[in-house]
C-alpha cells in the first residue's frame, strides 16, 4: 500500500456535520435530470414534454459525442423541460408513475467478466448510461471511450465539508463494491483505489486488498487531481481517469442486475438542518424531498448540491444531478454585520489567525456572505499556502489577466483541481478559482476545436 502525504490544504471545522445513520426515504413524486451539471456536454433532446419514459430510457445525447447517452432515472411522463438562457436545457422533469416501467440491459455474471474483452465491457457501460461517471484529467471532462487510461483513480472519501462517509454509502453494499472494482480493473492499465487513512479505518478493514493507496492531508487531499499530481512527481504517469467510490456501486448495480440504478445515498449537512444525517433516495430527487427528511429550518437558506467548495446552488426547487452525493444547507448571510471587521470573532471561520476563534477548537457557523469587498491582490500569499498542487495562484491569476496563457500553463493551470480554496481564503475576495475555471474551460474548447 502506498502512502501519500499532501502538505497543503485546509479543513474548516464547521457546525452541521451529518451523522452516519441513514434514513430511507419514500419515492418522490417526480425526478429530474440536470444536463448542465455534466461538464462540456451539449444536450440534444430525444424526448419532448408529454412523452412516456421508463427507468433507463434515453433522454438526451451529447451533440459532439453522440455515443454518450443520458438515461432517465425513473419511469413516468416528461412533465416539463426547463430551458435556461440561450436555450440551455437546465432540467428535464419526469413525473413518476405508480408502476414504473424499466429498460433491461444484459446482466453480467462473474464468469462473463473474466471472458469478456474491454471493448465489450465498455459498451455495456455506455449503453447503460453510466459512462459519464468516468471523468478524465486534467479537464474533468467525461472520459473518451476511444482512450486507454494508464491509471484510474477511485476516490473513496472526500474531505469536503459534509460529504458522504464511506461507512454510510458502503453499508450493506460491500459485495457490490468489490464486484465494481473487478469491473474497473478491466478498464484501465492500473487502478489506484485510495482513502484518507486517518479518517476511515472502516474502509481499510472492510476493503482489504482493494484499497491500495492511503492519503494523508487536509481537503482537497483526496481529490484525484491532487493525488495524480503528487504521484506523477515520480515520473510521468500519463493519461488518468477517475471515478468516486459511490459511483462504483452504481456501475456494479447496472452490471449485476441489468437495470439502470435508481438510488443513491446522500450526505445532508449544514446549519440549515436540525438533524443532519445521510438519506437514501432516488437518483435525481428534488432538493426539497431530501431536506424535508432532515428537519430544515425556516429562513433564508441556500441549498448547495455537491459541497461548499465546489458545488452549485441547487435552489429551493432544484434537483440533484448525477455527480452530486451531498446536499448542504447553510444561511445565505445577506446581512450587513455591524463593525464586522473589528469584532474579536470568537466563532468566526477563518484560515488566518486574525480572529480569536483561532485559539479555540470550536466548529464555526458559516454562511454565503463574502465578508468583505473585492480588492486588488496584495500578494499576501494565503492562496499559495493552501494550494494542493503547489501553484502560485496569485501569479497565475496575474498571468491570465495579462492574457499570458502559456505562462499560466507553465504555472500549472491544468493541474488546478478547482478545489476553491484559493478563492475561499483570499482576503481581497478575488474569485481566483472562478478565473482559473473559465480559463480552463476556454482551453478545453480550443483543444476540442483543434482535435
Amino acid at each position, binding site marked *: 500500500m502506498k502512502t501519500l502525504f499532501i502538505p497543503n490544504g485546509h479543513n474548516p471545522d464547521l457546525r452541521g456535520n451529518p451523522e452516519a445513520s441513514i434514513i430511507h426515504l419514500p419515492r418522490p413524486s417526480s425526478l429530474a435530470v440536470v444536463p448542465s451539471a455534466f461538464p462540456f456536454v451539449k444536450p440534444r433532446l430525444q424526448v419532448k414534454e408529454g412523452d412516456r419514459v421508463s427507468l433507463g430510457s434515453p433522454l438526451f445525447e451529447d451533440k459532439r459525442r453522440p455515443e454518450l447517452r443520458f438515461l432517465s432515472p425513473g419511469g413516468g411522463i416528461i412533465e416539463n423541460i426547463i430551458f435556461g438562457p440561450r436555450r440551455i436545457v437546465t432540467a428535464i422533469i419526469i413525473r413518476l408513475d405508480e408502476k414504473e416501467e424499466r429498460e433491461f440491459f444484459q446482466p453480467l455474471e462473474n464468469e462473463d467478466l473474466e471472458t469478456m474483452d474491454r471493448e465489450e465491457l465498455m459498451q455495456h457501460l455506455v449503453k447503460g448510461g453510466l459512462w459519464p461517471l468516468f471523468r478524465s484529467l486534467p479537464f474533468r471532462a467525461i472520459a473518451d471511450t476511444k482512450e486507454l487510461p494508464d491509471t484510474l483513480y477511485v476516490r473513496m472519501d472526500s474531505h469536503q465539508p459534509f460529504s458522504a462517509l464511506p461507512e454510510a454509502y458502503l453499508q450493506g453494499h460491500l459485495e457490490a463494491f468489490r464486484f465494481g472494482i473487478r469491473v474497473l480493473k478491466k478498464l484501465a492499465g492500473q487502478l489506484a483505489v485510495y482513502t484518507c487513512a486517518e479518517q476511515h479505518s472502516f474502509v481499510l478493514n472492510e476493503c482489504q486488498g482493494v484499497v491500495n493507496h492511503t492519503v494523508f492531508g487536509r481537503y482537497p487531499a483526496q481529490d484525484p487531481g491532487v493525488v495524480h499530481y503528487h504521484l506523477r512527481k515520480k515520473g510521468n504517469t500519463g493519461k488518468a481517469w477517475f471515478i468516486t467510490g459511490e459511483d462504483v456501486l452504481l456501475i456494479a448495480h447496472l452490471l449485476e442486475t441489468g437495470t439502470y440504478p435508481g438510488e443513491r445515498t446522500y450526505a445532508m449537512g449544514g446549519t440549515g438542518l436540525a438533524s443532519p444525517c445521510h438519506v437514501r433516495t432516488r437518483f435525481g430527487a428534488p432538493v426539497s424531498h431530501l431536506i424535508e427528511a432532515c428537519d430544515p429550518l425556516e429562513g433564508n437558506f441556500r441549498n448547495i448540491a455537491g459541497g461548499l467548495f465546489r458545488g452549485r446552488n441547487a435552489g429551493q426547487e432544484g434537483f440533484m444531478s448525477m455527480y452530486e452525493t451531498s446536499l448542504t444547507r447553510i444561511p445565505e448571510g445577506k446581512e450587513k454585520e455591524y463593525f464586522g471587521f473589528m469584532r474579536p470573532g470568537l466563532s468566526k471561520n*477563518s484560515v488566518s489567525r486574525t480572529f480569536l476563534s483561532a485559539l479555540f477548537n470550536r466548529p464555526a457557523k458559516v454562511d454565503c456572505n463574502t465578508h468583505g*469587498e473585492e480588492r*486588488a491582490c496584495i500578494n499576501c500569499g494565503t492562496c499559495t499556502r493552501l494550494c494542493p498542487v503547489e501553484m502560485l495562484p496569485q501569479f497565475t491569476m496575474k498571468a491570465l489577466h495579462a492574457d499570458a496563457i502559456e505562462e499560466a500553463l507553465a504555472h500549472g493551470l491544468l493541474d488546478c483541481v478547482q478545489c476553491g480554496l484559493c478563492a475561499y481564503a483570499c482576503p481581497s475576495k478575488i474569485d481566483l478559482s472562478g478565473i482559473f475555471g473559465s480559463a480552463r474551460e476556454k482551453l478545453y474548447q480550443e483543444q476540442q476545436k483543434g482535435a
Partner: protein
Amino acid sequence: MQRWIRSFFDTHRPKFEKEGRLHRYHGLFEAFETIFFLPDSTTSQSPHIRDSLDLKRFMSIVILAIVPVALFGIYNTGYYACLAAGESTAFIPSFIQGLFIFIPLLVVSYGVGFFWEALFAVRRGHGISEGFLVSGLLYPLILPPDLPLWQAAIGISFGVVIGKEIFGGTGRNLLNPALTARAFVFFAYPGQMSGDAVWISGGATDAVSGATALAISAQAEPGSQIPAMLDQAGLGLFELFVGRTPGSIGETSALLCIVGALILIITGVANWRIMVGGVLGVLGTGMLLNQLATGSFAAAMALPAYYHLVMGGFAFGIVFMATDPVSAPGTDAARWLYGFLIGALTVLIRVFNPAYPEGTMLAILFMNLFAPLLDHFVIQIRLRKRISHV
C-alpha cells in the same frame, strides 16, 4: 446606536446609487459605510463560503501592532521636548506634549493622503482601499518631530500619488508609499530631515544632545570606540533597545517593535521570513565587517553587529515597512533573500556612506525595486521543477 447609523446610511444611499446625483462618489459612500457595516454581498458560485478575513481586518491588525510603538513614540518625543524646554518630564506632561507634536502630523498625513486616495478612487470609480490606513499612520512615525506640516503634506502627496496611485493604486505599487513619502521629504528638505538639530522638538539646547546614535557612529574618527562614545552620550545598548533616545517619532524603540512583530507574526499578517532574514542580514554583514575592520577604515566597521539592530529605524523598518506584502516579494525563498539583503544593505549604507547615516529607508526602497526580480528567479526555478501536464 446601531439602528441609528443603519438608518442614516439607508436614507442617504439612494443619492449614491446608479440614478442618484452623487453616483460618482459612491466609492466614498461605501468606504464610510463599510467602516460601520460589512457589505451584504454573497457568493454567486462555488466556493460558496468565504473566509471571514478581509482587507479591513488585515490592515487593522497592522495598525494594532503599530499602536504600542506609536504610543511610546508620542511619550518619547514629548519627553525630549519637555527636557529641551526645561519643563517637567513626568509621564503625563510628556505624553500630552508628545500628542501636541504627533497629532498635527497624523492629521496632515491622513487628511492629505485621503484626499488623494479619494480623488483617484472617485475618478476611477474604485472603492477606497484600506491600505492607506496603514501608510498614513506609518508616515508620521518616521518623521522628525518638528517637520513643518506643509512639508509633511507635500511628502505624503508624493508618496500616495507617485509611490502608489500612478501604478494603479493599492496592490499595484512597486514601492512602499510611506517610505516613498519619507524619501521625498528627506531629499527635498534635507535641512529639516537630517543633522543633529531636528530630532528633538523645539530644537536641541546645550543641555540636551540631539545627536542620534547613528550620527555619532557615522561621525566617529577611525580607531575610536563607538560603544563607549554612545554610552557617554547616554545612548547605551539598553537605552537604544528600549528607545529612550532622540530620533524619528516612532522608530526609536526596538523593544516595542518586537511586540509589534509578535502580533504580526502570531496573526500571520506579516511574513516572518522577511523579518528573520533582515536580522540575519544585519548580523551577518555586521560581523563580516567586524572581521575586516582595521584602524584606518571607518570606525563603524568595528561596531558590534547587534548595535545595528537597535540603532535608528532598522527594527521599525524591518517589522512594519519591509513586510508590506504589496512591495515585498510573494514567494518564500525570495522573502528570505529580500529580508537578508535589506539587512545587509542597511549596514553597508550606515558604515560606508556617512551622508546617509540611516540606511534602512534606502535599503528597503532599493529592495522594493528588486522584489519582482527576486520573485521572477524563484518562480523560474519552481517552474523548471514542475512536470508539465499531458
